[in-house]
């Protein structure tokens, strides 16, 4: 039997890219046994580490300070030695230091803005962007198998916010649908318009609703207040991205949310799906029908002790998420997030997929409460307040 490393080296020799080859085999990888997937992840991440070590002066300095060289990173067991980039570095004025390539090669700058108003900017070159697009579409296809239908988009159109990460990632779903409509315009959303659109699509398309939880919740609350019970389709999906904590600080209760979506939208509860991702990374962990959030099989999640980020915590315990993403070439995708999560103890799932499953808990204490969704909510609240004042 050929070892993973030999197989990957052979692929490279033939001109295949091991990362995109892995992404192309998403469905198969989710059914590989753990040891084999870990071998693959270890190889891809070690190769990616070497790339950044050799091409990024600033990152190499971090590695030298930690006494780590590519020779030290051979497999998944060594990943804890890889120096991590704190996610806040993407907000720093000197974030150009993070680049492992020249700005000349950067094709796209993606941003996320939290409550502080300071944007987090991640800069992707062509290859990183290819990997990012492949990764996200591979996960969308794997978890939702969309190839038709209509998407009611409860977020601003990319024309209004072209670089906002959440908008860009959610809008990619439009490539899989036959019809879409963005219903957040100039920071306002009218639930009545959403209902009319859903009714117009009835018996023509399978209808899906996509957006940050606070906006979908707004629609459900409108239905509840007006005692309207819709009956969407059996295969309707309610797809959420962007955090459950609201700008006001209130947290949207997930269980109640699922129940109310089912009751007022007329869909099975298991069709309410959440996703986890961050603008600085090329990943989306997406919930399956058993509502377990699956980490893409080429990415490794490691959890750290909140009091000592160098220390890994065992699976099943809560910790601060560190991401090892081998798809990022323009900057190191080894990111220390500020998200408190846990990984489910078993790497198997009732849905049949194997691999890591993440459960998001909260932001770590002291971290800025912020993401695209919170920023959007803040602007929508401000716009609503302004329009109410004008009416008075």
């Amino acid at each position, binding site marked *: 039997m050929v070892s993973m490393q030999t197989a990957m080296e052979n692929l490279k020799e033939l001109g295949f890219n091991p990362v995109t080859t892995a992404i192309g085999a998403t469905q198969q990888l989710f059914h590989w046994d753990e040891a084999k997937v870990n071998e693959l992840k270890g190889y891809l991440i070690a190769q990616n580490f070497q790339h950044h070590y050799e091409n990024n002066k600033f990152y190499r300095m971090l590695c030298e300070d930690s006494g780590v060289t590519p020779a030290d990173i051979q497999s998944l067991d060594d990943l804890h030695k890889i120096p991590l980039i704190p996610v806040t570095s993407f907000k720093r004025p*000197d974030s150009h230091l993070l680049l492992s390539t020249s700005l000349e090669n950067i094709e796209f700058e993606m941003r996320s803005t939290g409550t502080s108003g300071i*944007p987090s900017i991640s800069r992707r070159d062509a290859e990183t962007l290819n990997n990012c697009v492949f990764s996200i579409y591979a996960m969308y296809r794997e978890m939702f198998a969309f190839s038709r239908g209509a998407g009611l988009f409860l977020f601003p159109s990319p024309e209004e916010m072209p670089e906002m990460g959440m908008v860009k990632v959610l809008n990619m779903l439009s490539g899989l649908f036959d019809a879409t409509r963005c219903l957040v315009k100039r920071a306002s959303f009218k639930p009545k318009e959403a209902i009319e659109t859903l009714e117009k699509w009835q018996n023509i398309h399978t209808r899906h609703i996509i957006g940050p939880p606070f906006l979908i919740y707004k629609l459900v609350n409108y239905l509840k207040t007006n005692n309207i019970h819709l009956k969407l389709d059996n295969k309707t999906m309610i797809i959420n991205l962007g955090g459950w904590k609201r700008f006001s600080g209130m947290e949207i209760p997930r269980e109640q949310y699922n129940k109310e979506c089912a009751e007022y939208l007329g869909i099975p509860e298991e069709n309410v799906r959440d996703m986890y991702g961050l603008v600085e990374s090329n990943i989306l962990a997406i919930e399956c029908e058993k509502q377990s959030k699956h980490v893409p099989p080429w990415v490794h999640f490691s959890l750290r002790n909140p009091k000592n980020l160098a220390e890994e915590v065992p699976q099943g315990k809560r910790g601060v998420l560190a991401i090892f993403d081998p798809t990022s070439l323009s900057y190191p995708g080894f990111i220390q997030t500020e998200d408190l999560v846990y990984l489910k103890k078993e790497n198997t799932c009732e849905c049949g997929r194997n691999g890591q499953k993440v459960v998001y808990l909260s932001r770590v204490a002291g971290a800025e409460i912020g993401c695209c969704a919170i920023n959007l909510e803040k602007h929508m609240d401000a716009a609503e307040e302004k329009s109410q004042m004008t009416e008075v």
Partner: protein
Amino acid sequence: MYNSIIVDYFSKPRHSGDVIDANRELKIGNSVCGDTIFMKIKVTDGRVVNAKYKAYGCATSLATADIFADYIIGKSLAEIAQLLAHEIDSMLGELEPPQMHCLNILHDLFEQILSEA
């Protein structure tokens, strides 16, 4: 996507930092996209003797802050006031459509520095 002027100023910023004894402050903020520049300037006898900034946002806006600081240092406010709009436009080189908002940022910086002159 980025012209050589933007690449140069973004990759090797000359004036990023703080001016302790500044007597002028300029601020650019876009609440939606988040491009933000805080610039501190020291003006002595009507001449800019120092300018440093902290900028957050896209590469072009960061380069814009640096190009602006680079231009004004050593010049009198009267000289700066004589700049014509098309001369300001040419400072950033040829821009792609998604970078054009940085021209507004640059014009805004010039307006702000002259507004209290």
